[in-house]
């Protein structure tokens, strides 16, 4: 029983991280029909920022890192994505891939290709003991972060003028402009929120792994894409469900796979997803008009 609960904690924690990742992707896609490969690099920028600010007290370090990610995202939007607004899906996808690769190369040029260690406060790497359960503090932080961010976003999209405008833009960008919604404001806000999510995700990943590398964003962004697709492209709540679903599947496979196959765990996760997509390609992939159902 204890083991089962332990696994549940792992699944919820991992699912929370994946949900945050998926949300960052789904948000930009909902508004701009852009699958942002560069989201992975935003995570990487967050990681390197944590390393750059490593001498600051923990909370300040995190806040500063997130701020850097948001600023970077806004610059990227201005330079790379604004000129391409309105281009068709394939061009946008390739462009975001190009931006992603550009940023990865930039990271290598600036920081080198060797991993950098980021030491976070001891209390983050410790565990909390509840009865016979060993709960890593980082898991608590992850789940708490997700809970706070998801509620905040839910409030934002349902109760604030900008939130309503973004939902309108996600459903029908052209018509939203016809009623006065500013295209630039909506897109800038979407990138800012997406960057906030990426920054927090970057912090959680670094807290778990302890290192920062130039390509640390590739695996998370793939997870985010997959979660978003499972949940239904364009649906925010779907992306969150997709994230938790992948978290559960990953932990289940981690437990169920024989030891020799454990290194291939992620490969099996993706195979499972492809299998799911095979069964329901139209049901899941169909771009529903009901976007951003917060």
């Amino acid at each position: 029983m204890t083991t089962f609960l332990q696994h549940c904690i792992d699944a919820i924690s991992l699912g929370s991280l994946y949900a945050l990742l998926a949300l960052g992707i789904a948000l930009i896609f909902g508004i701009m029909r852009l699958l942002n490969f560069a989201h992975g690099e935003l995570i990487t920028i967050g990681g390197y920022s944590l390393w750059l600010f490593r001498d600051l007290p923990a909370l300040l370090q995190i806040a500063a890192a997130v701020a850097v990610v948001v600023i970077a995202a806004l610059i990227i939007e201005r330079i790379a994505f604004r000129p391409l607004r309105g281009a068709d899906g394939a061009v946008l996808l390739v462009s975001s891939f190009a931006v992603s690769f550009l940023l990865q190369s930039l990271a290598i040029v600036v920081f080198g290709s060797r991993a950098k260690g980021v030491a976070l406060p001891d209390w983050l790497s410790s565990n909390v003991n509840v009865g016979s359960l060993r709960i890593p503090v980082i898991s608590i932080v992850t789940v708490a972060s997700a809970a706070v961010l998801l509620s905040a976003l839910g409030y934002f999209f349902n109760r604030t003028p900008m939130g309503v405008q973004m939902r309108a833009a996600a459903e029908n960008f052209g018509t939203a402009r016809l009623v006065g919604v500013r295209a630039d404001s909506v897109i800038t806000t979407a990138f800012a929120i997406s960057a906030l999510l990426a920054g927090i995700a970057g912090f959680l990943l670094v807290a778990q792994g302890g290192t920062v590398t130039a390509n640390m964003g590739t695996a998370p962004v793939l997870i985010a894409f997959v979660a978003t697709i499972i949940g239904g492209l364009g649906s925010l709540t779907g992306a969150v469900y997709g994230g938790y679903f992948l978290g559960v599947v990953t932990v289940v496979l981690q437990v169920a796979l024989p030891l020799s196959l454990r290194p291939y765990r992620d490969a099996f996760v993706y195979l499972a997803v492809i299998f799911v997509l095979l069964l329901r390609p139209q049901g899941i992939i169909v771009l529903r008009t009901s976007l951003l159902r917060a």
Partner: protein
Amino acid sequence: MRIARAIWPVVGLWVVLAAIQIFASTQSLVFQRDVVDMLINVVLVVGLYTFAGNSGVLSFGQMSFMAVGAYATAILTIPQIQKGFLLPDLPGFLADAHLATFPAAIVVGLFTAAVAAVIALPIVRLAGLAASLAMFAVLVIVHEVARNWDAVTRGSRTMIGVPTNTTGTVALLWAMAMIAVAFAYQRSNSGLRLRSAREDEFAARAVGVDVTRERAIAFVLSGFIIGIGGFLYAQFQGAFDPNAFFTEITFLTIAMLVIGGMKSLAGAVIGAASVSLLTNLFDSIENGLDLGPVHFGGRPGLSALLLASFFLAVLVWRRQGLTGGRELQLRIPRRPAA
């Protein structure tokens, strides 16, 4: 004359590549190696184009087939004794297998095509965007498998000892062959049907085109060609590790195809050739160069950065690429009627 015009899209490209290779044979060894590298890139991009260009589905994972081809080449062509030392845990029949260069190439190509056929089953049923991302997942899967399957791939350690038989001539001949194959395909009924679906999927389905089937054919052929590319690469470098088939080469080949022009075979070839030459320039800059009195210090990673910037610029300013999606045309002035 009509025949000349019909085959010029292929022959023209042959002439260009042959000219470069012949020129290279008179130059330094370094330059010759660069040209072989370029020809291998041509094969890879032609393979990518065969699926992506004809179907309109940009696959972010076709280089998985390069990995399959390269590792298959290693297993089939590394001399027995060395193989026993490098890959002691290979299953029996693989440990014993050995083929001469040309038969090995064919087997590698066919094997990769078979792998592609299996992967095609789920992939071609997915809508464009989902298919692109699913192929990215395949790339990650293949990379992870290669990094962990110690018995077959030596895991993340370098595979060494592959005989280096890919000379300039060999690469040129294979490149020419693959260009001919790709052209024959895109002119075939299957190819034309796929291209019609690329332009308007609904209309194509409405006139009875089995889009899934046509995509599958293109995908398998793409796998074959890229597998050959992997073979050439393995026998050129003689050594490689899983990272050779991951995001860098994926980005490079996609950039080559898009810069050349995604919708035509000429775009694939010219894109590959010109970007290869461009990256040589960028590599020199990365290693530091002297322009008269001015010295640019080298920085690792600069070459990739420059290429990515160039690529993004092309996307913003000339999306349709160098060829604009057109094939090479033969313009012969018609004789006026008597």
